[in-house]
């Protein structure tokens, strides 16, 4: 987790500025992903470090509404707008475009006086059957994440990675072992479920995952049949796949599964040291964030003259972009840059499935 020193931002026509509450648009009087309660919040996606509790009004992409409700509570005032449809706040117009990160994730395009900024939140360029594909948006200023902004991070095509996951599951299945696959319960878990070969065996889930599966299915996302693990009879897990949040590794929750092998699906698995520290049997490199070539390509595709870089390997990306002749700045936000360690709600309320 790297933090760059706070950089004071000074550009012409500031459509956004950094305030103690978060990224703020003065001409439209709203915040994007504020980390403190504010009047009006435009939310890029439902992960805990972007969608925080306590603001008065929330705006998000239509497909993400259900997720936000689960995360922020039924009483939160949430308005969902379809991708590509402009909403007007003061002098500005706000349009959401798919970010390809998780279901309902959006890039926020802010326009005023023929000048535009895009706050991209978290994003990836790889296709993902559980959410709309990332759409490059032309703009003058671009705010990008930098979770994996080092050239050591280059993702293989999904088909290759899922081939490896399926092989691992199949082999465990033949040995009558359960396969415990860890992935963040919102987004990563559903992408895993949609991508594995369901013919290998039954699939069980942790409560936190199952709860979000409901939301995904109600948004029309096709997922294979899953069973909430606590609702299943013990001793039936041999040969099955169990999808659970990473925090379950090494916990007593695993006892019910008998003989099993563990694996973690994350971009961090690219590096051997991370893999070994995780103490899992296998690490599969699968991320919902852009890799190095993806970050560079998306910056290029926006055509932006100014790039602000937040959370992750900020300094290397800023320096690289500057060496390419762009005006780049690091931005000290409160977004987390670890796709596995985000504090996620793990209360597994009973589920009827």
């Amino acid at each position, binding site marked *: 987790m790297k933090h760059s020193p706070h950089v004071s931002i000074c550009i012409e026509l500031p459509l956004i500025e950094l305030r103690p509450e978060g990224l703020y648009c003065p001409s439209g009087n709203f915040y994007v992903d504020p980390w403190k309660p504010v009047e009006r919040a435009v939310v890029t996606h439902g992960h805990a470090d972007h969608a925080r509790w306590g603001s008065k009004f929330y705006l998000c992409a239509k497909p993400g509404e259900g997720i936000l409700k689960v995360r922020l509570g039924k009483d939160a005032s949430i308005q969902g707008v379809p991708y590509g449809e402009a909403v007007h706040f003061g002098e500005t117009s706000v349009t959401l475009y798919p970010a390809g990160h998780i279901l309902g994730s959006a890039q926020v395009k802010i326009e005023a006086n023929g000048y535009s900024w895009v706050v991209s939140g978290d994003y990836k360029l790889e296709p993902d059957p559980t959410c709309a594909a990332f759409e490059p948006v032309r703009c003058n200023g671009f705010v990008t994440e930098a979770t994996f902004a080092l050239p050591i991070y*280059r993702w293989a095509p999904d088909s290759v990675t899922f081939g490896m996951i399926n092989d691992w599951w199949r082999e465990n299945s033949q040995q009558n072992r359960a396969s415990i696959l860890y992935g963040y319960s919102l987004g990563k878990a559903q992408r895993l479920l949609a991508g594995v070969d369901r013919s290998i065996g039954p699939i069980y889930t942790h409560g936190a995952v199952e709860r979000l599966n409901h939301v995904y299915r109600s948004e029309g996302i096709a997922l294979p049949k899953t069973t909430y693990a606590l609702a299943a009879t013990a001793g039936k897990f041999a040969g099955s796949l169990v999808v659970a949040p990473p925090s379950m590794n090494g916990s007593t929750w695993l006892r019910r599964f008998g003989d099993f092998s563990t694996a973690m699906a994350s971009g961090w698995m690219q*590096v051997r*040291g991370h893999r*070994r520290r995780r103490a899992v*049997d296998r690490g599969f490199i699968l991320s919902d964030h852009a890799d190095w070539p993806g970050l560079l390509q998306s910056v290029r595709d926006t055509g932006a003259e100014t790039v602000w870089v937040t959370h992750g*390997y900020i300094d*290397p990306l800023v320096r690289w972009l500057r060496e390419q002749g762009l005006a780049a700045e690091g931005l000290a936000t409160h977004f987390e840059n670890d796709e596995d360690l985000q504090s996620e709600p793990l209360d597994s309320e009973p589920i009827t499935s």
Partner: protein
Amino acid sequence: MKQFAELYSAMDSTTKINIKVSAMEKYLQAAPAADAAWAVYFLRGGKLCAPFPSKMMRGWAAEIAGVPAWLFAECYESVGDLAETAALLLPDAPEQDGLGSLTEWIESRLIPLRGMAEEDQRRLVVDSWQQLSSAQRFVWNKLMTGSFRVGVSDGLVMRAIAAVSGLKVEVIAHRLAGAWKPSGEAWIALVSEESSDVGQSQPYPFYLSHPLEGEPELLGNVTDWMIERKWDGIRAQMIRRGDDVHIWSRGGEILTERFVELVEQAAHLPKGTVVDGEIVGWRDNKVLPFADLQHRITLKRPSRAILDKIPARLLAFDLLEWQGRDVRTLPLQERRALLETLPLHLSERLHPVDWQAARQLRLGARDFLAEGLMLKRMDSEYGVGREKGRWWKWKVDPYSVDAVLIYAQRGHGRRASLYTDYTFGVWDKDKLVPFAKAYSGLTDTEIREVDSFIRSHTIEKFGPVCTVTPQLVFEIAFEGIQQSTRHKSGIAVRFPRMARRRTDKSPADADTIETVKALLLST
């Protein structure tokens, strides 16, 4: 190369011993003899001299990857391993099958690399990268930089060889002892039923002890045990066979040339004798500090002056071969009796009347610069490897000092990108002076806590090292202490590690340099 890289991945991705052993068995069964030999060599930690300084590989990899030096450095800092950083950065190439046997890769590429002109080295290395996948490149880079390491003990490698050959582990251990040179013939000799017996210079596998936990009374009668001091030196076997003398370290190194006085002494032994003991520095009738011996051991052919200043002595404690016969299965007391008839310096046998008296001897061990006592059952055979029950080491409790974390540095490998290497200070009046560095002793959870403390309490950075607000207190344990002119604090400690974090203490409660120096006097 492909199969060897797969073997590495299989072993690296599991912590389960059985899976590691069966992966080795599978490889050794299928591999051509010479490949099996090289694999065994590397699995056991064998290294070839790096053909070029690692910074050259760094330069070539950055160039091929199109990454500027600063960015390579950022990646390296994050990954913590040069071979891996290079492997991850190199672009995918069209032919990445890792074709060719391990032997070809080692004997036709790696070994010839040494002594090539730089431009030829570059061409060969870049060409080799073209033919390997990222995982294979990692293994290859590790081999080239002499940093290949697999988390597997020698015992497990031998277990796999034993399973493949159908021979006993003891036989494999004996055949492998000493400097085993990998080749197809060597592998065949290693695993064949009637292998030509052990070579003239071959040592026996060393028998190792376990640390004693709990009270010695549990071991029964004190008179059933042979008790000696545990010397802090170099464990070695002295071999006299025919007209030759060989001296082997436990690490499998030949020390013969380094200890001319021992060779001279061994020449007086009857032919067909193998003695086990500890080499120590010895002058004026007492053992010299280990640091002296350490200085001497670095010299291939020590000068007359060094020989006079740090004379070596083998303190013999066991007899493995007698009149050309392997006597390891005789009871220890019989072996010792035979040993005592030889012209040797023996490790003194102690005769405490009871365990209470033994405790006193243990407490006094440091007066002899010994680490504690060795307890060996009188009737014990000389076994293989480390077993529980027959030989125990009973070390003196370590020294301990409370010190404050003042500097931190990122770790390597598994601990890359975490601050895991710490420097600790003790008070010298109102200043903290660095007195020891320690890397080990914390759990992964504690490391993460300390790491996040360091990140939020960094005062200044000097390259990879940062100074930290002095706030965390640790109990530092260590085995020995000596005066030193090379250290700021004027002292050097041996085997320092973190015994525990003292959350109950504030920096002001940490020890002073005076208390630490007082420990010097107690030795």
